[in-house]
Structure formats: C-alpha cells, structure tokens
C-alpha cells in the first residue's frame, strides 16, 4: 500500500475509533457507573444516525427528508430523539433488575431494527438513506476526512470531559452506590429510580450522538449497519476490555478492540490474496473475526478481570487536579 493510502486508512481508522469512543462512554455511564445491562446499544446508535440522516439529508419522494437542517442541529436532534426513546423505555423498564433490563433492551433493539426496515416512508426501508451531507463536503478527499476527524476528536474530548466531571460528582457517587446496594441507597433517602432513569437517558443520548457522528462520517445509513454484532457486541467488548467504570478505559478499549477488529479483517484478506487461505474459508472469515474478538475478551477477563484500566475511586472534586 502506498503512503497516502496508508494515511487515509489511518484517518478512517481513527474516525471509527472516535465514533465508538462516544458509544462506549455512553455505555460506561449505564453499565460502568450504574450496573445497567443495556444490550440494546444498537437501538440508540441507529436512532441517532437515522434522526440526523432524515433532518439533514436530501429530499426524496420515497422517504421523509429534505429539511436541510445544519450538521450541529442534526446532532442535537439525534441526542434528543435517542434520549426520548430512552425515557420511554426507561419509564417501563427502570424498575427491572439487571438481567430483566437486558432482555427488555434486546427486545427494544429488535423493534427499532424492524421499524427501520419496514417503515419505508420514514427510513427508505432496507435501501437506507444515502447522500447524508457532512460538514466539510466542500473540501476534497483526504482534507475532508482529516477535518472531520478533528471534529470527531473534539466531540470525543467533550463527551469524555463531561463523563469525567460527572464521575467525580455526587451524582455518579449515588449511581455507583446503587450498583452496589440499592436498598442501602434507598435507606439513605435517595430516589433510586430517578437516578437510574437519568443514567439510562444520558448514556443513551451519547449513544445517539455517536450514531449521528457515524452517519455524517459514512454518509449512508441502512438497517444492516446496525446489526447487534457491529453495534452492540463490539461496544460491550470495548468497555469490558478497556475497563468498565473507567472513562479512560472506555477510550482505550475503543482503540484496542477496533484495531483488532480491523486488523484481523485485513490479515484475513491478505492471507487469502497470497493464497494461504482457501477461497472457501475466506468467505467464512468474518466469523473468524468474531471468534478472535471473543478469544481476546476471554484472555483479558482471565488475566485482567477488571479490564486494561480498572475502575478507581474518583479524585475529590473539591481538590485541585
């Protein structure tokens, strides 16, 4: 591969890591801080992506669109819609203990996927929505990619900053206490359900933001892009491998796991190219990738049970850093 190709690949790689970083930080608020087993990350991811695609995308006879709203408004609306969906789901499920919440969120994700697939007037069904504008469409090729990468990094930094500030706040202290023992938190006079709902909604809003950032990055969304493997499983592996309850761990997890995920695919392609891998196996190689990620997760869990960067009690907020 020539150098410029390598560079643009690198930009693409970091952009995807950034999108995932936002998703993982969102999940960390739910699972890391509060112990909520949300197995429906894909739903909020997809809703965020579709929201911005519809409100900023081109007009079409086949589906809703043509509002021509700017990029930033798209992002905000994506967060709002993902947050509203989370509020709706949360009001129903907030009373549920972790494993029941897991089952409920799987159901929600499936419902969202089916709606995206079947409500063609809204989403263009399986054909998806294309030509979603990016904020730097005027720029050419790699410059556009780099400008968008910088934008993504600014968003990652912003979300990270908010998550860290919250982690060190009394708010997250209550969430962490709920994770350990709900009854005792109730006995300390806190409205447990309200805190749990807040964490669920806020985490989901970040997932919606991640979805919107993704949509403007790839310029095309379809139901296939949000299958549970790509949009839920990988996010969970990133958080657990990186270290749940640790925001830096969330970022590191996004980087490491996405590296393994993409490199494994390049490696498989390369092996097939030089004929080391029979064609028949090469077509099944994507399954091998999932196997590799699973194996890596097992190794991390066996050797570093709390992830690469384990959770630590936060530094006091009233002291200087």
């Amino acid at each position, binding site marked *: 591969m020539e150098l410029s190709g390598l560079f643009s690949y690198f930009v693409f790689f970091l952009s995807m890591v950034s999108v995932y970083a936002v998703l993982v930080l969102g999940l960390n608020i739910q699972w890391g801080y509060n112990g909520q087993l949300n197995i429906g990350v894909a739903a909020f991811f997809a809703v965020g992506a579709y929201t911005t695609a519809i409100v900023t995308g081109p007009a079409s006879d086949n589906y809703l669109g043509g509002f021509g709203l700017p990029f930033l408004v798209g992002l905000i609306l994506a967060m709002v819609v993902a947050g509203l969906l989370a509020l709706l789901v949360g009001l129903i499920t907030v009373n549920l203990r972790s494993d029941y919440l897991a089952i409920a969120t799987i159901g929600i994700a499936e419902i969202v996927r089916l709606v995206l697939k079947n409500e063609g007037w809204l989403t263009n069904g399986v054909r998806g929505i294309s030509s979603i504008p990016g904020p730097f469409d005027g720029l050419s090729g790699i410059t556009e990619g780099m400008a968008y990468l910088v934008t993504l990094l600014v968003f990652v930094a912003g979300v990270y900053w*908010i998550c860290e*500030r*919250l982690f060190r*706040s*009394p*708010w997250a*202290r*209550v969430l*962490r*206490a709920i994770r*350990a*023992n709900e*009854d*005792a*938190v*109730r*006995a*300390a*006079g*806190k*409205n*447990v359900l309200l*805190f749990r709902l*807040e964490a669920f909604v*806020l985490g989901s809003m970040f997932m919606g933001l991640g979805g919107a950032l993704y949509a403007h990055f790839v310029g095309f969304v379809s139901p296939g892009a949000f299958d549970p493997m790509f949009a839920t499983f990988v996010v969970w592996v990133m958080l657990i491998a990186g270290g749940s*309850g640790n925001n830096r761990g969330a970022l590191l997890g996004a980087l490491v796991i996405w590296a393994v995920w993409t490199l494994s695919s390049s490696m498989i392609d390369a092996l097939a190219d030089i004929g080391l891998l029979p064609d028949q196996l090469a077509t099944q190689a994507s399954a091998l990738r999932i196997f590799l990620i699973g194996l890596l997760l097992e190794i991390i869990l066996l050797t570093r049970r709390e992830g690469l960067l384990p*959770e630590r*009690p936060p530094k*006091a*907020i*009233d002291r200087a850093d």
Partner: protein
Amino acid sequence: MIEVENIVKTFGGLRAVDDCSFQVPRGSITGLIGPNGAGKSTLFNIAAGSLTPDSGRVLLDGEDITALPAYRRFHRGLVRTFQIPHEFGRMTVLENLMLVPGGQSGERVPNTLFRFGRVRREEREVRERARDVLEFLRLTHVSDELAASLSGGQKKLLELGRTMMTEARVVLLDEPGAGVNRTLLGHLAEDIRRLNRDRGYTFCIIEHDMDLIAELCDPVVVMAQGSVLTQGTMDEVRHNEAVLEAYLGGGAAKEAEEA
C-alpha cells in the same frame, strides 16, 4: 417518637407480625428483643418503609407515615441500619458517608456541569462532616480504604456512621452488635449512648446480645410469635415468666423460678 399500631404482615401462610403495637418514646433507647422468628426484623422493615404492612399504621411524631416510601421517611428523620452491613464495597469509606446527606446540588447533572463552584463548596462541607463522623467512630485511619476491605465490626460502625450524616431524629438499628468483637462492641455502645445524650437521637435497637441491651436500653420490648409479649425495664423483663417461657420453653421457666 415512633408508634406502630396493630401491624399485621403475612408471608404466604405465615403471620410474621400479628397485631403488633408499641411505642418508642422520644429520647429513649428502646430495645426490641425476642426469639428468632418473633417478627422483629419484619416489623423493623415495616417501620423503615422497606415493607408494606397488610394492615395497621406507623406513626412518626403522631403523623401517619404508613404509605411513605423508605426514601421519604429518611427525609422525615427516620433512618435505619441493616443487620447485614450494606456497605458500598467499591467506594471508599469516606465516600460511603459522603453519599448520605440529602439535597446535595451535585446530585443533579446540570448543577455538576454548570454550577460547579457551588457543587465544589458543598462537597467540601460534606467531606468535613464525614471526617468528623469518622473521627467520632475512630475510623479515620481507614478513610480512604475501599469499604469492602473493612472488618465486619468496622462495617457495623460504618452503618452507624451513615445515620450520623443525617438530621436523624429516630434511628432504627438492626442488630448493631452481631459479629462485632468485644472491644469494638464497647465502642459501639458508647457511641450509641453519646449520640442519644449529646445529639438527642432516639434509638430503637434489635439485638440478641442481652448484655448490650441491659447496658443501653430502657424500655425493652419483648416480641414473640409476631406480637408484643411484654415491655418494661430490662430487670422487669428478665424476670417475666412469659419471657422466659418464650425464650427457653415452659420447663425452663419453672426451673428458673425454683432456682
């Protein structure tokens, strides 16, 4: 003052609490004793709001609080501890206490993001208060340890400490002495008495350690089979025939009388 009136609670066919009524007078340290299965903990859970009674009322200072959820009773000054320590294991001892005070502005997300100065100021005050409590309980040396690493007795002290982070008026202690070694138990009893005397806390204590009850409590309420058997000072209760029978069986009561 807290009163329970005609409380009934059944679990399936079992009448755990059966038409039980008594009062915890203001400023007292009231003991609640009885053999295992007498319904003490169930009654406690009902008083604290963790369980809803089938019938009967719970009154706090004359006001009916039967329908209030646990977290609202807390804000009325009714605080409880747990028989099995409910510490937050992956939080520091200091954090375990700092969690408790109600109405911290940093518990609201927008305040944390946009009114950071105020959150920070309050946090400093809460931290000071938590340090005072730890000093009172002689736990200063473990302030920054994770609560999971404390000994059983220290966890019990931490339970008591949580009640001290509040404006509590009535504190329900569920077996504060269980699993605590003698030295620490001495501390605990002293702490309870100091809180009662100096800060005006009213206590209601479930306990199986009769020495602790005898040392601290007046009056003592005896429960058996879901209702109140008798009440009075420890001395009166100790010589009550019905109590001996409930604890030791009929024969033993007779023997005790003869002895």
